């Protein structure tokens, strides 16, 4: 039977995939067509959404992109007949090759299987790794295999996963917990959401393997409430796994191993990505971090040994146990093994989700896979690591992507957000944006973080408003260092990074703002000056009519002028002028 598969991640749905699905469903039912309609997760090519794949009886795949309610009807009607009519809808060859440039391990099933059907996951070799562990390996052997793979935590810090598991295994207790951190809070990152929506079973299997290795009987997934679709699909996956006997008592039969998983919806707090804060939140408290040690591996959830890993880390684990740690370690660099998933966004032509081997250069990702900057503008910087990271400038585009090299630039690998910026992005404004974020998200426990980030934000806001003073840069640096030293958890320790890294590479932009009251990227409104060119103005009066504050004066067919005192720098005149007579400086 012919299959029609619609990519339905949250982003696909936002682009209209659910409407496409409904239209296809209606047509198939109406005409009684012999077509099986299915849905799958996000394949990562977000700029082509909604994506529809057709697999005919012979197993041939055809991919159609930017599908609409109308064009899905064309696809169904013409697929068996006039295929040429569908040429305009087919995926272009250059986009097809984007997948070939990637190495997909964590994303191996995303966009390929129906996440709501456990059988499809099993058919692809799913749940074989956990069964192998339970029947043929000791917990120590599982951890040893992981050690060979050299997998490091994909949530941001990059701590060796085997080491955490080993510590939790060695803790003596009858009750232990395996926790999945799915509180993906970095603004600009959506790798974990896509994995949860596209391949929830790989996360469950990873957690099962970990639970067996450390000796946990209970697993908890702490997932953001802002990801409703991920929660729905996880619930379906857990229920299906229970029915199969993969979760519950004596899983897989005759193994004597009990393990079950439940979901806990987070309530919106960035700091809960920190392990101890996450545990506090799981216990129903305010999510505030505490001093380590004791580490969660010794005393975590309800004071019992607890291991916490991130979604992408778990998704890698079944593959590693299935293929062998050495296979995984064969990919990547000396100290950073395997692959990493990145969310490529911002001013990028072909944004989406990419999984690449460690060691590939930033240039290859941004220009080779992402195809460069929208409108072929000048690349300025790429932001990695979100509010804990930094901006990497154009001269460092050949930096290899591995933990050590990225850290050297002043950014961090982070969880995988990669926001590309062009010449129109103001770096001072970027720093201000991130400090605004961390200032709001600081839990308030440490004074340096709570007040320090607020003071830094005030200074940055002042600079963007054209009220910067001599000594502001030194003051920012002083505060930054003190916040790093005086904060308990990762949020505070890394909060000043966006400022420090932009100061390192774009100090001249700060100086332009402070000393010359100019924003080179023309983003900081207060520093802009709109003027009308005498020679170009035709006196059409359009700008004067559109100006919301009546700051533009001039008779019809006479040159207009802007009253700088009244001007609120909204840019309306610039936008509406048909003769390019309005300039901004």
């Amino acid at each position, binding site marked *: 039977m012919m299959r029609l598969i619609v990519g339905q991640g949250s982003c696909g749905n936002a682009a209209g995939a659910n409407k496409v699905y409904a239209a296809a469903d209606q047509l198939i039912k109406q005409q009684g067509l012999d077509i099986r309609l299915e849905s799958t997760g996000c394949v990562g090519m977000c700029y082509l959404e909604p994506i529809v794949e057709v697999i005919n009886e012979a197993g041939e795949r055809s991919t159609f992109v930017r599908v609409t309610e109308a064009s899905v009807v064309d696809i169904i009607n013409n697929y068996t007949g006039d295929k040429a009519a569908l040429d305009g809808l087919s995926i272009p060859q250059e986009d097809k090759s984007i997948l070939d440039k990637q190495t997909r391990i964590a994303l191996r099933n995303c966009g390929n299987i129906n996440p709501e059907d456990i059988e499809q996951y099993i058919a692809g070799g799913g749940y074989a790794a956990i069964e192998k562990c339970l029947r043929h390996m000791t917990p120590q052997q599982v951890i040893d295999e992981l050690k060979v793979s050299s997998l490091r935590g994909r949530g941001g810090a990059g701590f060796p996963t085997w080491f955490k598991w080993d510590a939790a295994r060695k803790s003596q207790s009858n009750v232990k917990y395996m926790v999945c951190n799915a509180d993906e809070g970095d603004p600009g990152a959506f790798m974990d959401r896509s994995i949860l929506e596209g391949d929830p079973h790989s996360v469950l299997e990873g957690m099962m393997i970990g639970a067996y290795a450390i000796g946990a009987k209970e697993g908890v997934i702490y997932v953001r409430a802002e990801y409703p679709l991920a929660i729905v699909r996880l619930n379906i996956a857990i229920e299906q796994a229970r029915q199969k006997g993969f979760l519950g008592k004596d899983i897989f039969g005759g193994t004597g191993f009990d393990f079950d998983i439940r979901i806990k919806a987070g*309530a919106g707090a960035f700091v809960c990505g920190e392990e101890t804060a996450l545990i506090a939140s799981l*216990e129903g408290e305010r999510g505030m971090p505490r001093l380590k040690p004791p580490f969660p591996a010794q005393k975590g959830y309800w004071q019992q040994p607890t291991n916490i890993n991130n979604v992408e880390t778990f998704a890698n684990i079944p593959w590693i146990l299935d293929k062998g740690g050495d296979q995984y370690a064969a990919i990547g660099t000396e100290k950073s093994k395997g692959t990493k998933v990145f969310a490529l966004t*911002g001013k990028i032509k072909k*944004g989406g989700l990419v999984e690449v081997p460690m060691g590939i250069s930033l240039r290859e990702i941004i220009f080779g896979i992402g195809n460069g900057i929208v409108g072929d503008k000048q690349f300025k910087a790429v932001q990695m690591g979100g509010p804990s990271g930094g901006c990497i400038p154009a001269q460092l585009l050949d930096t290899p992507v591995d933990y050590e090299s990225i850290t050297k630039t002043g950014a961090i690998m982070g969880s995988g957000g990669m*926001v590309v910026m062009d010449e129109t992005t103001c770096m001072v404004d970027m720093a201000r*944006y991130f400090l605004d974020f961390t200032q709001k998200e600081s839990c308030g426990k440490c004074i340096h973080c709570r007040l320090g980030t607020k003071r830094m934000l005030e200074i940055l806001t002042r600079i963007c408003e054209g009220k910067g003073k001599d000594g502001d840069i030194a003051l920012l640096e002083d505060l930054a260092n003190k916040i790093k030293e005086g904060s308990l958890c990762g949020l505070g320790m890394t909060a000043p990074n966006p400022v420090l890294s932009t100061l390192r590479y774009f100090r001249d932009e700060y100086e332009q703002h402070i000393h010359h009251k100019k924003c080179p990227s023309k983003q900081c409104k207060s520093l802009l000056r709109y003027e009308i060119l005498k020679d170009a103005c035709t006196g059409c009066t359009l700008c004067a009519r559109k100006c919301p504050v009546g700051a533009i004066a001039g008779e019809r067919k006479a040159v207009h002028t802007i009253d700088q005192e009244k001007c609120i720098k909204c840019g309306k005149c610039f936008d509406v002028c048909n003769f390019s007579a309005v300039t901004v400086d």
Partner: protein
Amino acid sequence: MNCCNGCHNQGYEKLNPVFEKYRNKPGSLISVLQEAQELYGYLSMELMDYIAENIGVKPAKVHGVATFYTQFRLKPVGKYLILLCQGTACHVNGADAVKEAITEELSIEEGETTSDNLFTLNNVACLGCCSLSPVMMINGETFGKLTPAKTKEILREFKARESKSAEVTA
């Protein structure tokens, strides 16, 4: 606990099954608050006091947890809740201009509700639809690749839908 009018816990019966569900599960305060908000739209002081009394924790703790997490709303919201994404990609691609368009169209700022109780505007940390930035979500439906003009158009459609249904009722 009595409310200001002296009535006793009026209308909170719907919470009873929720209390029952979490009765023997320690650490469930956040889950109870989430379900309460789902049922009543927001967490009023009376509602939080009622929850505290029923699950045996101090009202101060309930209030402390409710104010810590951004998901919890302490004020009623309009019929349509606009969540404007504040993610990095949205910021870089012009979320500020979208915010201005919403403010121009509805005359509300972040956290405010229109006088006709139709729209509430809330900022939200990343919605994870970065490739469609800038993005907003209205009652669970995501709208991407927004421009100020497109934003206003969407809001006007919602308004038109409302006045139509008002006509029908009249």
